[in-house]
Every structure is written in C-alpha cells, then in structure tokens.
C-alpha cells in the first residue's frame, strides 16, 4: 500500500541495515550479541510508533537499554533470592 511515511517496522529495518557495515566487521560472537540487542528493541516497536519521535533510532536505543536494565534487575533479584536461601 502507498505510504507517506515508512512504518515503524520499516524504519527499524532501515536503521538496522544502516549498521550492516559495522556488524560485518564485528567478530562472530559480537555479531550474535548485536543481533540480540536489535531483537530486544523490536519488542517495543509499538511504543516507538506511538511515541512518533522524529529520530526513531533514539527510541530503539532506549528500548535496548530498557530490556537490558530489566534483565539486570531480574538477575539482581535472583542473586538476592539465592543469598537469602543460603542465609536462611
């Protein structure tokens, strides 16, 4: 269908492709980590669309940070739980 603006998914794919040279030069292990980062950003595409930011990449970067922070908090909680178990 004709679109005046690219959809958020199209914008995301464009941004991801813009880093293809960067990705290519990374080691295999780092490439996997980078792909994971982009995959986590995808989970918040709908929020990014709603935000309708003029520079969507900022929203994508923030989404990556968000997912990472969630993971840290969950791990922190698990560590606390494990410590609690040991102390108990």
């Amino acid at each position: 269908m004709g679109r005046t603006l690219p959809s958020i998914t199209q914008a995301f794919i464009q941004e991801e492709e813009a880093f293809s040279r960067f990705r290519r030069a990374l080691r295999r292990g780092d490439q996997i980590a980078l792909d994971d980062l982009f995959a986590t950003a995808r989970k918040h595409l709908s929020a990014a669309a709603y935000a309708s930011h003029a520079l969507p990449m900022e929203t994508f970067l923030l989404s990556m940070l968000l997912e990472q922070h969630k993971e840290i908090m969950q791990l922190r909680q698990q560590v606390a739980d494990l410590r609690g178990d040991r102390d108990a």
Partner: protein
Amino acid sequence: MPDHTGWLLDLFEDAQRGVDLWLIGDDGARLRLRQDFPLIFYAAGNTEALHQLGLWLRGQPEKPALARAVRRDLFRDQPLTLLAIEMQDPINQPRLFQRAAKRFPDLDFYDADINITLRHAARWGTFPLARCYVCADDDGNVQDMRVLDSPWDLDPLTPPLRVLSIMPDHDPSHTDPTALIATHDKREYRFSLQPERSLLINLRALLQRYDPDLLLTGSGDTWLLPLLLSLSKKHNLPLPLNREPDRGVLHKKEGSYFSYGQIIYRGQQILLYGRCHIDCRNAMMWQSYDLQGALESARITALPIQQAARVSPGTGISSMQITTALHNEILVPWKKQQVERPKTALDLIQYDQGGLVYQPITGLHFDVGMIDFISMYPSIMVHSNISPETPFPDRLGSSDHPPGLVPLTLKPLLEKRIALKQRALSLPSWDPRRAQDKARSAAHKWLLVTCFGYLGYKNARFGRIEAHEAVTTWGREALLRAKEAAEEMGFRVLHMYVDGLWVQKDGCRDPQHFQPLLEEVASRTSLPISLDGVYRWVAFLPSRVDDRLPVPNRYFGVFQDGSVKARGIDLRRRDSAPYVADVQREMLRCLALASSPDDLQQRVSQAIAILRQRLQDLRQGRVPLRELLVGKKLSKELSGYRVPSPGAKAALQLQAVGKSVRPGQRIKLVFIRGGDGVHAWDLPEPPSASALDVHYYQTLLLRAAANLLQPFGLDEDELLIWVRSDFGKQLELPLRVWSWRHAPDILPLDPALLGYPANA
C-alpha cells in the same frame, strides 16, 4: 383504484418514463408497476459557463427542465448556487450527463451518477424487500406509496421468495459439465446439456412454471448464463431469464483491481431485470455472507439485491452515505475536488499512523480475559462525531456539534449491530434466529470495517484523510486508557491489538471477575466495550522466521466453554491444504479438552498420536487428492514473474492448454515430484497419485504441528524425533508452562521488583 401491499423486489429505470417496480404481493402475485420519478442533477461553475450549458441543454433531444437551485456542498462553507437539470426519463440521464460533462469539462457536476435505487430510497424510503403499501391506477401507474418497515428492524416480515438454483454437475473451470441440476422447494431436476434444444425447452418450461424471484447459480456469471444466452440465440428459442421480456440482460465486464495491498479478481457479471441473479461462485465473500447476508446488505445499503450480493462493502457503505446525503439535500459530488491540506513533517509523523499493535508476551498463558471495544472505529466516529465536515474532536465522547454525514449514516447500523450482538448472548443455541443473526452480523461487520477505510480513501466522495487520522488517533488513545485502567486494577496486559486487549490477574477466571474492569474502561473512554471471553489458556506464537520475535497476530486458545479461537496459523490460512488444516484443527481440538495445566501434558501426547496416525495416512496413500489441493493467489500478471512461484508455474500450465488466468485469481494445485514440482488442478488430466510429493506434504504438516506444539516446549526437530519414535507415549514431555525458551527476557518486569506495590 386498486391498492397493493407487498414487498419490493426490484426497481429500475423504465424504458420510457419514470421507474418500474416489481412487487411481491401479499396474495402471492408478482406485480409490475410503473411510477413517475423525476430525477434532478446539478451543475455549478461560473455564470457564463452555466448559461452556455443551459443553452446547450435546451437543444438536446431529452428536453430537460432547467431551474436555479441552492444546495450545500459538504466541503464548502457557503451554499452553492446551481443549475438544476430535471428529467422525467431517468433511463436517458446517464447519456445526457456524459455528453454534458464532456462538452463542459470545467463545470462541477453533482448528484450526477447515482444508482436509481438510491435516489428512490432517499425520496420514498424504499429498499430491497421493503414492505410497501402502493396505490396504483388500473394501468399499474403508481399514484402513491408508503414504506411500512425499516431496514433497521431486527425481525422484519420477510417475503416468501421463490428461489430456483441451477448448478452445473461439475465445476466448469475444472471439467466440462454434462448436465445442469435445478432445484426449488426440495424438488430436483436434471437437464442434460445435450441435445441443446431440449435443454432450452425444458429450462424455459421450468422458468415459466415456477417463475422464480431469485436465480441462484453456480458460475452463472462466467459460464452458465453466457452459455444459455448463446444457445438461445443459436436455436432462436427465447429463454425467459428476465421477467421483462423486452429487455436483454445486463453484462458487466471482468477485471482485476488493487485493494488493501492485494490484487482482487472479479469475473464478469450478468444481471437480470425483475428477477435477481446471484452467482454463488462469483459473489464476493459468498462463503461468509450466504443468502441471508446478501439480502441484509441489500436492505441496509438500498442497492438492488443482485448488485448488493456482488459489490464490495466499500461500495455498500458509500451507497449508504449517498442516500443520507440525498435525503438531507447535501450535494453528492461527481468527482471529488478537495485535496489534502499541506502538512508539516512533524504533523505527518504524529498523525499518519494506524492502530496500536503490540508484540504479545509469547508463550502459554492460563485464565486470560479478552476484552474488546465493540466496532471501535465506527463507535468513535459516531460518539465523537467524526465526519469530513465537522470540526475534529478534542476529546473522546460526545460532541457539541450537530451530527455529521458519516455519524448520521453509521448510527443506525451500529445500533443494529450492537442490538444483534446483545441478542446473540440471550438466544438459546437451538433458536433458528441465531444463524440468521450471525449472517446479518457478518454483513454489518464488513460495512462497518470499510466505512473507516473510506474516510481516508482519496477517491471516496465523502472521504477526508484528516478525519481518518482523527479516528486512529482517538483509537490509540482509547486503547492506552484501557491499558492504564487494567494495570491500575492489578491486571497484567499480555497483548493489545488495535481494539482489544488480553489481560490476566491471579484469581480472575470467570466473566464477572472482569466486569469491574469493563465498567472502568467504558467510563474512561465512553466507548462500548465487551468481554469477548475468558480463555482457559491461550498461546501467543513468535515469528516463524526468528523465534526471538513475537508477532502480533499469531495465536490460538480455548475459551472456557471449550470453543477454540485461532489466528494466523495454518488452519486459518487460505493457502493451506485441507489435509494440513484438518490435522491441525483436530490436534487443537484435542488440546482444547485439557481443563488444567496438569491435564495438558496428557493431551499433548494424544495430539502427537493424532499427528502420527495422519502421517501414516499420507504415506500410505489414504489421503484423497482433493484434500491436498493448495490454492495460491496470483499477485501479478504472469509475465511479471522473474522466478515463477508455485502458483505462477501452475498458471503457466493452465495457459499452455488455453485456459486464461488473471491476477487475483486463486490457482488450485498439488505438489508433485519432478517436472515443475506442481500440477494445476484445473488441467484436463488429473495428476497421478504416485507422482505426489509426499515428503513435501509431510514437511508442511510437521511445520503446522510444530506451530501448535511449540508453546508446550516442542520444536520441529524435537517433534520429528517424537513422531518417528515408537516410545513417545512413555516419554516425559518437557512441558514448560509459559516459560518457553526466551520467555524470561520477554517478561515485563513485575512492579514488585521495583520496590513499590503493583497498585501504586
């Protein structure tokens, strides 16, 4: 003066003057009446050009009456002064108008190309199958008429329609039929296609004796009626397909067009006078509409039955808008003049958006409530009064302005749909009205869905992109308000999709547990909302390409009453082979029997047993070829394929034997080994059963099964091992309830982790 009460069956332009009406009388008589029906169309422009038009019109053979008129154009602030052109012979209007438009291209024309039934609907309140009281003189000239019911009645008195169905004994696109099977009132006749003369004579006798109101055919538009017409001509035996003996049938040409990102093919159409011809093969969306739906569309759109059964819902909704406009003396533009106003890039970024579509939390979830806004976009248009000519609302909820054209048109339709929905909840399952209501509801649904699209369509007569954007803006707002309400009340929001959300909360598993949430959302959005149902369990699937990615519209689940709902998996896809879809459906029904998470484990083993059994059927050749047919849609002209898809290869095979194929047509094929890899089903010789590509069908089936079983912790490779092994029953299943491989990092954070209570 004789007067009649009955139902209006058909209405069209009289060959000389006014219109002809076909009435089904209460006494069973089929009456043909004639009514004077002057018709007016308008021209606007500069005074000099209008004067020239007037002079020119006076010299035309139609001799229209000319007058000055003042009317409202929705897209202009001031009323327009126009030249009104009145004709007593509607049948000649299209030709006069076309000549005028060609000669005076700079003038704007209004009310110029409107279906006669819509004009009649606006003037007299008629619609197909309306109950009418008609007062006519002895020659059948209507003196007065009154319509006794309304298209919005829930249970209208319906006429005893005489329906004659004529079907070929074989699908003509596949094999040449040898006979026609005609049925009416449970009586069946078989007419051999040879000899042709006796076929015509028998058919003519049947048409004359039974005199059907409705001719229901299989491939009547593309094959049957063209054949009968040419035979009738060849043998010089007139065939009374029409009730009007002096008229020929009306041909409409075939074509392909582009709509919502898809190529759609529509075959040629053949329309009759005084009798309705519906081709079940060609009527768009016939499967979901059926006859009840077609009649309901005709009643509410006021389009003739045979057209309502064929047109797209977009034409239906714009017809309703035209009738509303005519009725309210608002001009209907011939060509839309107004264009989109200039916008800044920032405006575009903010408003050029659709509905909110979330990525669900993939995996298996138990006790999930699904709530959705009832006809969200139409509701917003009606409640917030969104129409091209009204100021755009600054809030959800009632508007201070008088209702615009679009809300005026939609309001009764929306109310009828909601009334039918409410009734559906109270009717017992054996009530015959249930099936009927369902068919009518489906017709309403499509009209309501497209009315939103038409608001933004650049060629729609009453469209305006800003109104379209206002609807989605407030739709997003309503969905976010619903999300906020749910989260504040302690629900987890698993998924949101434009007008619905899936929510979950410990201890909420009965409809009444969700009632407070519904009330809260309704009060925050002032839009009608309902509980679609409570799922015993529902599984949201990740993308097929990358299993880290959730996708919005691939899920399946079981409601508390045991009914199953699935989207985006093989059994819903139109290009799945029936065999694959059936096995998937059977497996899903088996899983649906599980009432608790513990029980699921056993059901998964049973589902795998079904899969194994059906795979055996395939390998041992027990699956009929017909069930392995796959329908692939052609998306472009054959010459446009660089690498032909399976569908294109099959189409090329058909072309090689002289059968024509068009973009948008669905090509039926089976996958075979060797050669092209496919065999078109409509080729004269059937594929041999031994050539069948069993391995490929096995892959398709395993993929379909893996889609179902993946939320339970089994992927395609694991599944293959399970299916091959004979010890599957003893193995412990790796059931990982909603903690599928990537689930932990997809989980939204539990607010408790952040150190503040969930309800804060």
